[in-house]
């Protein structure tokens, strides 16, 4: 992740917000557009950031993760069930994390221990998560008529939260705050601790890491499982912070967008976070385009992040390269 890429992403966000300001209909005030864009962007970016960090830990250890979607979906269900059964939102979050870890452990068992193709393993988890949560939500939730335990309350920073336009930044719900905290923490862990160095070496050149005395299998398991816990928090966002109910397939592809954010950000925490914000900004413009009276069709704006991800992957705007060992099972011999 170069400074250039970071600046590029920030520039893109500025362009989207600026575009909204320039194109808005004169009936809508500039500050309303800015405040609304900012609030929607942050809200949308929360699960993306968490999903991308989950994928980052996994992929930096050399395990491809297209299962973020399935992990978040099942965690969303687990969090809902935990909170609804105990009427305790904190237990809900913990239940979400536990389910995330369980799915991650399955991914690790399949792709690290059994050496199943990592993309196939991810596909299995995605299909399984959709099937099991769909089945359980009709069988358990509807039959027992479980009602959600409500939403996590917003935590305000006094004074700052009352500022015009930037107020929403200082008034977010706990999981959103956690996602913001986890970005620097993950950065420190990955790039400035011995464990992080070991993790990266396992993801780049596992044979050399093994020769240096690092337990490749254990390191990969740990990374994938911590990633699962983070994806679990991301899943809890959907049922404890967004809406107080579970709907089948409610993550709606956000796990795949998180994966795109991870790639977009060049497999770094700060980059993934910035890319999540960019995707959030594009989504904010997408869903508000009509309300702001913007003449560009919302769907065209909606395509933008995905097209940009393809362009970036193709190396047209600076190349990103994944950890070298991603996708390759490690065979100790």
């Amino acid at each position, binding site marked *: 992740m170069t400074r250039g890429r970071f600046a590029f992403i920030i520039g893109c966000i500025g362009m989207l917000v600026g575009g909204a300001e320039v194109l808005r209909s004169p009936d809508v005030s500039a500050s309303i557009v800015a405040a609304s864009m900012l609030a929607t962007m942050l809200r949308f970016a929360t699960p993306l950031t968490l999903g991308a960090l989950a994928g980052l830990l996994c992929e930096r250890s050399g395990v*491809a993760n297209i299962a973020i979607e399935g992990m978040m979906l099942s965690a969303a269900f687990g969090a809902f069930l935990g909170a609804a059964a105990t009427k305790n939102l904190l237990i809900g979050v913990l239940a979400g994390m536990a389910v995330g870890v369980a799915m991650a452990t399955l991914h690790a068992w*399949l792709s690290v221990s059994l050496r199943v193709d990592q993309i196939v393993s991810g596909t299995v988890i995605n299909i399984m998560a959709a099937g099991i949560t769909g089945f359980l939500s009709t069988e358990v939730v509807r039959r027992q008529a479980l009602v959600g335990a409500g939403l996590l309350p917003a935590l305000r920073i006094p004074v700052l939260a009352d500022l015009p336009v930037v107020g929403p930044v200082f008034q977010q719900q706990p999981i959103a705050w956690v996602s913001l905290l986890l970005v620097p923490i993950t950065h420190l862990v990955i790039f400035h601790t011995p464990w992080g160095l070991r993790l990266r070496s396992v993801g780049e050149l596992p044979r050399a890491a093994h020769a240096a005395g690092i337990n490749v299998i254990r390191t990969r398991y740990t990374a994938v499982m911590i990633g699962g816990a983070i994806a679990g928090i991301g899943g809890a966002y959907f049922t404890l912070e967004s809406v107080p109910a579970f709907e089948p397939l409610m993550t709606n592809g956000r796990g795949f967008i998180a994966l795109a954010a991870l790639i977009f950000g060049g497999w770094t925490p700060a980059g993934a976070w910035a890319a999540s914000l960019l995707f959030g900004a594009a989504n904010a413009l997408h869903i508000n385009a009509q309300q702001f009276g913007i003449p560009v*069709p919302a769907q065209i704006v909606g395509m933008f992040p995905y097209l940009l991800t393809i362009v970036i992957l193709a190396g047209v705007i600076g190349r990103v390269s994944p950890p070298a060992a991603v996708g390759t099972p490690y065979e100790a011999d």
Partner: protein
Amino acid sequence: MTQAVRTRLIGGLIPSLAIVTALLIGGVIIWASGPRLDGPWFGIWFVVEAYQALVEGAFGSRASTIDTVLRTVPYLFTGLAVMVGFRGGMFNIGAEGQLAVGALASAWVGFSVTSLPLIIHLPLVLLTGCLAGAIWGGIAGLLKARTGAHEVITTIMLNYVGGQLAAYLLNGVLRDRSPLNVIAQTPKVAETARLPDLIPGLHSGVILVIGVAVLVWFVLWKTTTGFELRMVGINPDAASYAGVNVVRRMTWAMGVSGLLAGLAGAVQVAGVNYRSTLGFNVGYGFDSIAIALLGRNTVSGVVLSSILFAALRTGATKLQFRTQISTDIISVIQALVLLMIAADQIIRWIYRIGPAQPEAVADATSTAAPVASSESGR
């Protein structure tokens, strides 16, 4: 028994055992979610009753059998699509998007062109769908071959681009403007753009899909192109040394894969829905991967697995009607099948079957993982 026969027997044995095992586990889930009545035998009777309803729902009457066949058609097209990709070392997660653009394009040609005879119009509609799908898949293939951009990610992204494009067009220029229409869909296609019925209720796309399946088998196993494609799938470096144009074959594999998925969309438009509706493609992407994996990337296997998937989906309604068990039980069973296919060690362990023979691995029929896609990173 020769080694080849043994390998082939085990090749068919493991998917069968996976299905049986998944149905047994599904039975336990049905038992656990069913009512508790009349002593210990009631539970077993209940599970038998549920599966009987499933079979009856899929094949019990003429109408339900036709329904199962109708559902098999798109599964078979998309299953073959993913299979061709796998054989060329490409993991196509984009069948959903390719099917969507195929359906859009063919519906457009279907309703906007009105003065052609069926003999020209219908092939034109189907070919447009093929072309749109082939372009959508080919982009991913070309990007992989030229720049190394991993096709798993580009096809996922192209699914979203395709989805947004469909939303834009179906709410805009392609939208049915009749005052009765309230949803994002095209007008109905002209009579000349519809597949004639083979027997009442069953369109002739069934013949087409069988023909395409045979053609896919022939091209992959009986032509030089197919041989080169499979070579690239097993080891692109070796293929390159042997003089195969790897870039062209990869693009070709994804293009043909997209073409088949696009044709699936076109046949749904021309044979079943007579229009393209926003979101009707959802779910085919992952189901088609499951079908290709369960069929071990062989044409006969893909045919059998798409019939199985269609039958499960069709029968599920009756299962729910009779036992009040949610139709989602089918997704759970499918996930279990896929899990045990992907990690066939589980099946080998349960049923005490020896490890895969080296020949089986080299034939790439064991685990579906395309060697090329896992080794070249993303």
